[in-house]
């Protein structure tokens, strides 16, 4: 979580300094939710389809920081080799599918991965998880994917981070239901609500849902309420977010809450946290420095191959 925040702060400065082309999308304010999910999953076994604001979840799941910096900075040594950027990275063979931009589209992909695992005899035991935003719940792909997973009774955990906005669009232009958790019943799956700014609540609720999926309980939906604490991307100042909302219950910073919860609950001392913060700051620095030194793609030697198949011509 901390690492993610620090990494993202760094990405933001790199973007503002013109070192990153394209866009930078941050998960500020969503770290508690995302990290709780990533931490509840087991790398090498489970599947985590991270979305746009899941740096914290990725880190918690075990994605190395360098994957992030390499992808943002376009290093050819990164998992996407400069072919795709930023949050679109992944390592599908390590349980980390690489998102396409089209919202909602990853839900059925994770379902398919789980479906395959079942055919291979690996279920129950494995969990597949993905996050979506409030806006993504309006997509047909989300609906089809969740419904299919429910019908197939797959161990899919869907975390909906209702951060009150989809880009600039507030939830009243997105849906009319009282609470998105009401959708769960319509899919015939359990739904849970959680305050996304409350780290301990997130770990508990999400951790339990993951456990239920793991034990054969079928798909689980968690709806976390919170507020996006940045613009949609770093090009956006988010000036449309009303001050009242920022001052409201979801406006608090989950990282601060988590730090307090850690110390108050005696999970860690203030000193330990500070030391940890220094350590992660170093790690981030190193990951950025390393990626910056690495080669970027060379169009002249690049392979332009959209297919893995090579068609040989007869002589």
């Amino acid at each position, binding site marked *: 979580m901390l690492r993610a925040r620090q990494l993202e702060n760094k990405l933001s400065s790199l973007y503002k300094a013109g070192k990153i082309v394209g866009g930078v999308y941050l998960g500020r304010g969503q770290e508690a939710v995302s990290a709780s999910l990533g931490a509840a999953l087991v790398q090498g076994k489970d599947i985590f389809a991270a979305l746009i604001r899941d740096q914290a979840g990725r880190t918690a799941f075990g994605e190395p920081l360098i994957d992030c910096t390499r992808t943002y900075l376009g290093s050819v040594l990164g998992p996407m080799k400069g072919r795709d950027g930023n949050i679109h990275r992944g390592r*599908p063979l390590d349980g980390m599918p690489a998102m396409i931009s089209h919202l909602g589209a990853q839900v059925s992909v994770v379902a398919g991965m789980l479906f395959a695992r079942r055919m291979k005899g690996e279920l129950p035991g494995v969990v597949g998880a993905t996050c979506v935003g409030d806006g993504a719940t309006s997509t047909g792909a989300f609906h089809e994917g969740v419904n299919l997973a429910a019908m197939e009774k797959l161990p899919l955990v869907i975390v909906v981070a209702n951060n009150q906005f989809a880009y600039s669009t507030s939830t009243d232009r997105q849906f009319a239901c009282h609470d998105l958790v009401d959708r769960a019943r319509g899919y015939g799956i359990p739904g849970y609500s959680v305050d996304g700014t409350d780290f301990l609540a997130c770990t508990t609720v999400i951790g339990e849902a993951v456990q239920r999926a793991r034990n054969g309980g079928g798909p689980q939906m968690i709806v976390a309420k919170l507020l996006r604490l940045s613009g949609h991307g770093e090009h956006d100042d988010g000036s449309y977010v009303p001050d009242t909302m920022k001052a409201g219950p979801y406006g608090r910073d989950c990282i601060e809450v988590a730090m307090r919860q850690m110390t108050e609950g005696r999970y860690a001392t203030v000193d330990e946290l500070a030391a940890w913060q220094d350590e992660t700051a170093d790690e981030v620095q190193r990951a950025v420095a390393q990626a910056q030194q690495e080669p970027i793609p060379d169009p002249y030697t690049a392979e332009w191959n959209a*297919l*893995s198949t090579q*068609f040989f011509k007869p002589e």
Partner: protein
Amino acid sequence: MECPFHPILQTRVSVTYIDAIREAQAKLLREDERVFLYGQDIATFGGAFKATKGLAEEFPGRVHDAPISEDAMIGLAVGAAIEGMRPIIEMQFADFSSIAFNQIVNQAATHFYRTGVPVPLTVRLPSGGTPGSGPFHSQSMESIYAHYPGLIVLTPATVSDAYHMLIDGVAMQDPVIYCEHKFLYRWLKAKSISDDHLPIGQARIVRPGKHATVVAYSAMVHEAVRAAERLHEDGWEIEVVDLRSVKPLDMDTVLASVARTGRLLAVGEAFPWGGVTAEVVARTASEGFHLLDAPPMRLNARDTPVPYHPKLWAAHRPTPESICEAIRQLLSF
């Protein structure tokens, strides 16, 4: 050598195009445990066209009825392919793949380029027009998918190709769009299927000739052959090339044929703007300009949705008559 067919088929006197598709799937299921089928009404019911008849019973747990969720069906296939499976997805009609368009062109087609991980999945598209099937059960979408990098687009025209290309397509590491023509399903029959077959990526000279080349694919191959037969009565020898796959497109065979004949007509059942015939004619003009003795020609369906009424439908797509007419025009230069 004959293929080791399922007993049902061995006792038949002839094999239809749809039998071949069913048998190819049976063989794949039998021989490769990574293969599974997912599609609407394909399990107990055996599919809207019976292409999977009996397979659910024969291969328990390998043939699944899908909900009416084409987008999620392809998403599922991509996910399963990442995990090493070889899903075959049946679209009930090619036309409904429009719902899965995003997952096909943006998820499946880009996956290997983006991540280095291939997604070997096959989408079966029951394609093309039949009388009375109307605007939404008649479409030919090969040109749409061929436009996108990262997809292999197969368009078998014969019983043997329907069989072998499905098997070879499923064996490929990349996403395959397998366009099977509904009109050929039961109409096209073969005595048997031999093991000999061309690899994917090679076109085939269906009928040799020297006065003009007609390039076609899928059902139009048969209409082109009929046209060639009629013109034969008048002494013309028309070479007919079956593209077999529209991506990859075997321009070598096309150009070699045009080198012999000096004349080209490309025939397709799809809509007239762009598409296979444009690609074939454009590439022939670019790569084989000096081979051409006359302007290359195209014949496509008309520029309207596919009409419902059989009378309109028959005038919407190319027919032996209209192909003959086009060839005569081509020969008159």
